[in-house]
C-alpha cells in the first residue's frame, strides 16, 4: 500500500465524549476520514466503535466534542439531515428493503431528497444503472433482495448507500457473515470507491479486509483512541496487541495480579517486537 497524496479531510471528529448514566462509552476521541482513502476503525468488542458510529451518523448526541463534515459543524444535526448533507452508511445487520428488487432498492436511495443537487446531467434511470454496473449488480437488478446471498446483499446495501452520492461512506462491519471470496469482492469494490475519490470509514473486525483496504487505522479501546497510523505499524504495536488479547498486567488504575505478570510480559514482549 503506497502512501498517496493525502486527500483533504471530509469528516472530522474532535474530542468526542459520550456518557450513559455513570458509564463512559467514549472519551476524547479524535479522528479524521480523508477523501480518496479508506480509514479503518478497529478495536475489541465493547471498545466503543458502535457508539462512535452512532455519534457520527447522528443516532446519538455526544456529551462533549464535535463532529464536522467538510468544515461544517453537524454535531446537532438529525440523522436525516446528515444523510442529506452527504453521510451515507451501511448496517451491520442488513437493512435492505426486502420487498423491493435490487434496482428498486437503489432507486429509492437515488430518489431520496438531498441537500445538494445531483452531480452530472444524467437522468435518474441512467444513474441507477450506472450504480448497478459499477458494483457488479446489473445482472441481478430485477431480483428480489431477499433471494440473494449475503455477499451480494451487502453489495446491494453498498450500492444503495452510494446512490445518494455521499461525501463520506460509513461501513459498519460489512464483512460480517461473508466468506473469504465474498470479502474479496467487497474489498475490491471498496478500494475502487476510494480510488474514485470517496472518503470511506470502515469499522470492521475482519483483519484481512482491514489490512488490505485501509490507509490508516484508528484503534479504540475502552472508549479511547489508543493508536492511530498505518496498518502495518499499528498491527505491531504492543498496546494494540494487549487491547485485543487482554492483559492482566498493571495499567493506570488497576492492580495487577502478581502471579500472572511474568508470563504475561514475556508473551507480549515477544508479540510486540
Amino acid at each position, binding site marked *: 500500500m503506497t502512501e498517496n497524496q493525502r486527500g483533504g479531510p471530509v469528516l472530522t471528529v474532535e474530542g468526542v465524549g459520550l456518557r*450513559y*448514566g455513570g*458509564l*463512559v*462509552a*467514549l472519551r476524547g476521541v479524535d479522528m479524521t476520514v480523508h477523501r480518496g482513502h479508506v480509514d479503518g476503525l478497529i478495536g475489541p*468488542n*465493547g471498545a*466503543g466503535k*458502535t*457508539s462512535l458510529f452512532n455519534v457520527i*451518523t447522528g443516532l446519538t448526541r455526544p456529551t462533549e466534542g464535535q463532529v464536522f463534515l467538510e468544515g461544517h459543524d453537524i454535531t446537532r444535526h438529525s*440523522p*436525516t*439531515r446528515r*444523510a442529506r448533507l452527504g453521510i*451515507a452508511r451501511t*448496517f451491520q*445487520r*442488513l*437493512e*435492505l*428493503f*426486502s*420487498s*423491493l428488487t435490487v434496482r428498486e432498492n437503489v*432507486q*429509492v*436511495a437515488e*430518489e*431520496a*431528497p438531498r*441537500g445538494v443537487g445531483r452531480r452530472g446531467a444524467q437522468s435518474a434511470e441512467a444513474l441507477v444503472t450506472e450504480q448497478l454496473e459499477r458494483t*457488479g*449488480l446489473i*445482472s*441481478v437488478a*430485477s*431480483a*428480489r*433482495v*431477499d*433471494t*440473494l*446471498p449475503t*455477499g*451480494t*446483499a451487502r*453489495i446491494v446495501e453498498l450500492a*444503495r*448507500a452510494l446512490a*445518494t452520492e455521499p461525501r463520506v461512506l460509513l461501513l459498519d462491519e460489512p464483512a460480517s*457473515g461473508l*466468506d473469504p*471470496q*465474498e470479502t*474479496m*469482492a467487497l474489498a475490491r469494490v471498496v478500494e475502487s470507491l476510494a480510488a474514485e475519490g470517496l472518503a470511506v470509514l470502515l469499522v470492521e473486525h475482519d483483519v484481512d479486509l482491514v489490512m488490505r483496504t485501509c490507509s490508516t487505522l484508528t484503534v479504540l479501546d*475502552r*472508549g479511547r483512541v489508543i493508536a492511530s497510523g498505518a496498518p502495518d505499524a499499528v498491527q505491531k504495536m504492543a498496546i494494540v496487541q494487549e487491547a485485543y488479547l487482554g492483559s492482566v498486567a498493571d495499567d493506570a488504575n488497576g492492580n495487577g495480579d502478581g502471579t500472572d505478570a511474568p508470563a504475561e510480559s514475556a508473551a507480549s514482549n515477544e508479540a510486540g517486537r
Partner: protein
Amino acid sequence: MHFFLVYLVSGIVAGAIYAVTASGLVVTYNTSGVFNFAHGAIGMMAAFAYWALRVPLGWPMIPSVVVVVFVAAPLAGALIERGLIRHLFGAPVASTIGVTLGLMLALVGVATILWNPGDYRAIPTFFSPTKDVSIFGVSVLYNQLVILAAAASVAVGLRLVFYKLRAGVAMRSVVDDPELLALTGASPRRTAQRGWMIGCSLAAAAGVLLATQVTLNITTLTLLVVSAYAAAIFGRLRSVPLTFVGALVLGEIYSFSQSTYIPQWFINDTQLDKTAPMIVLFIALLFLPQGRLRTAGQVPAMRMPVASLRTSVVGGVVLMAGALVISAFLSQSNLLYASEGVALAIVMLSLVLLTGYAGQISGCQLAFAGLGAFAMGKVLGGASPLGLVAAFVLAAAAGALVALPAIRLQGLYLALATLAFGAAMDYAFFESPNSFGYGGSLLVGRARFFGNNFASNRSFLVLVAAIFAVCSIAVLAIRRSRFGRRLVALNDSPAACVTLGIGIGRTKLIVFALSAGLAGLGGALYGGVSGQVSAGDFPVLLSLTLLLLATVWGIRSTSGVLLAGFAFVLLPLIPHVSSLIYLATGLGAITISRNPEGILGETITRISVLTTRLAGRNQPQNPIAFEAVSNSTEAAPAGHRAPIEPAVTIEPAVTIEPAVTIEPRAPGA
C-alpha cells in the same frame, strides 16, 4: 361542594373498574409481548356467562363469580396462550394485532350467536341497589363498595403474586430477558401462560363488575375496555402501580365529563362520557416514549409481484366487462349488495395503500368513509359529482389531521391511536345529532355524470365498478412509482430510510391523507347504494372487521380486497349467518395472520409453485446462478456455501418490545 364529592367518588369507582381491567392487560403484555386486543371481549363474554349462570340457571352469586372469574377465565387464558399466542413469538406486530383482533371479533361473533342482541338482559347487582352508606356526607352504594373492594384486592393480590411468589417474580423477569429466564431452568412459555391466566381472570372480573353498572350490550362492553387502554398506556404497559394511578385519573375524567360543570348539551352532543376516555388514550399515546426506530417490517415483506400497467388496465377492463354482463342477471337487491361490496372494496383499497404498502396499521378507515358519505350528502343536494370530490377532500383532510400528531407512533401504538380516533368519531360525530339528526339519517344520492343520474341499480353498479377499477389502477400505479417505492421502503426499514435522508414523517402524512381520501370516496359511493347513511353504518368495530377482512384476503393486493368486499357483503345473505360475519372474519384472521399474503396470495403462491413444477423448469430466479455471475470476476467458485434460504431479519433472539427506550448494556457496546 357536595356535588364535587359525589363526582369524585363516582370517578373513583369508575377508576377501580378501569384499574382491574387495565392491570390485566399489562400483565398479559408483560409476560408475552402481545397486546391483547381481545381483552375487552373476554370481559364481555365473562359478563354474559355470569348473567347466564345467574338468571336463566338461577345460580347464587358467589358460585357464579367463582366459576366465571376463577375457573373459566383462567382456563380460557391458558388455552388462548397455548393455542394462539405461543406461535406469535417473534412475529411481526401486524400479525399479533391481527390474531388478537381476530380473536376479539370471533368472540363478539360467538356472543352474538349465543345471546341474541335483541333481547334485554340485566345483571342482578351484588346488593340491593338502594343499600348505601354515607361517607363524608356522600352516599356510597354497597355495590360501589364491592367494586372498590375488588380493585383493592386486585392491587394487593398482584403485589403479593409478583413479589411473594416465585412464579410471579419470574413474570417480572421475563419482560427483561426471556432467554436468561430459560437459562435458570424456568420456562418462559409457562410463565407467559400464567400471565395470560391472570390477565384473563382480571378481564373477566372487570367485565362482571362493569356489567353491573351498565346494560349488558355486546358492543358496549367490548369497547368500554378500550377506554381502559389509556390507563395501561399511562403505566407504560409495564408498571401496575402506575396503571392504577392512570385508571384513577381516567375514572375522574369520565366522571367529571358527565358532571354539571360542563354544559349538558355539549355532553349529549359529543357523548363526552364515552369520548373523553378515547381522547385521553390518544393523547397518552403521544406522550409515551417510543422505542427506537424499528428495523424489521411491521407488515411482513411482500412476495407477490406487482402488476404492470398493462395488466392492471386489462384487469380493470375485464372487471368492467364482467360488471356489465353479470349485472344483467342480478336481481335488484343483489345489485345493491354487489354495489355495496364494491364500494367497501374501495374503502379497503385505502388499506392496501396505507397498511399493505406502507405498513401503517389503521383501525379507523370507516370513520373516513363516513366523513366522505357525510360530505357527499351535504354538498349540492347530495347527488353532485362535486360531492365525490368533496368526499375525497374532506376525508383526506381528516386523515392528515389524525396523522399529524401520530407521526411518531409505530405499529401497536399507531393501531391504538387510530382505534381511539375511530371510537371518538363514533361517539362524537356519527352518533351526534348534528351530523345525522337524532336517530336519523342523511340522504346521500348518486352522482350525476354525463347526464346519467344512475337511478338504475344496474348502471350504478357499473359506475361503482368503474370507479373501483380506476382506483385500483391508480393504486397500482402508485406502487410502481417513486412514492410507492418509498412507502414500501418505509415499511421494510424505517431505519434505513432515515439514513438515506428520506423524510419519514412527510411520507406518512401524505399516505395517510391519500388513503383517507380514498376511503372517503368509497364511503360516498357506499351511501349512494341505499340512498342514505345513518349513525350506525360506520362503527369502529366494523373498521376493525374490514382491516382484518382485507388482511385475510390479501392486504397487499387490489384483487384481494375486491374479493374481501364481496365476502363481506355476501356472507350475511346466507340465512342465520349475519352474525357469523364477525366469527368468520375472526377465525379467518387468526389462521391467516400466520400467512402474511392472505388467502389470495397463498393461493397464487401455491398455483405458481404448482405450475412451475408441472412445467418442469427451474425457478426463474436462481440465486446460485446469480452468485456465480456476480463472482465471475473472481477466480474461486463460491459453491461451498450452504443452500440459500430467503433472508430473514437476523435476530437471533427475540426481545419483548418495551415501551421505553432500551438502555445500552455495556459501556461502548
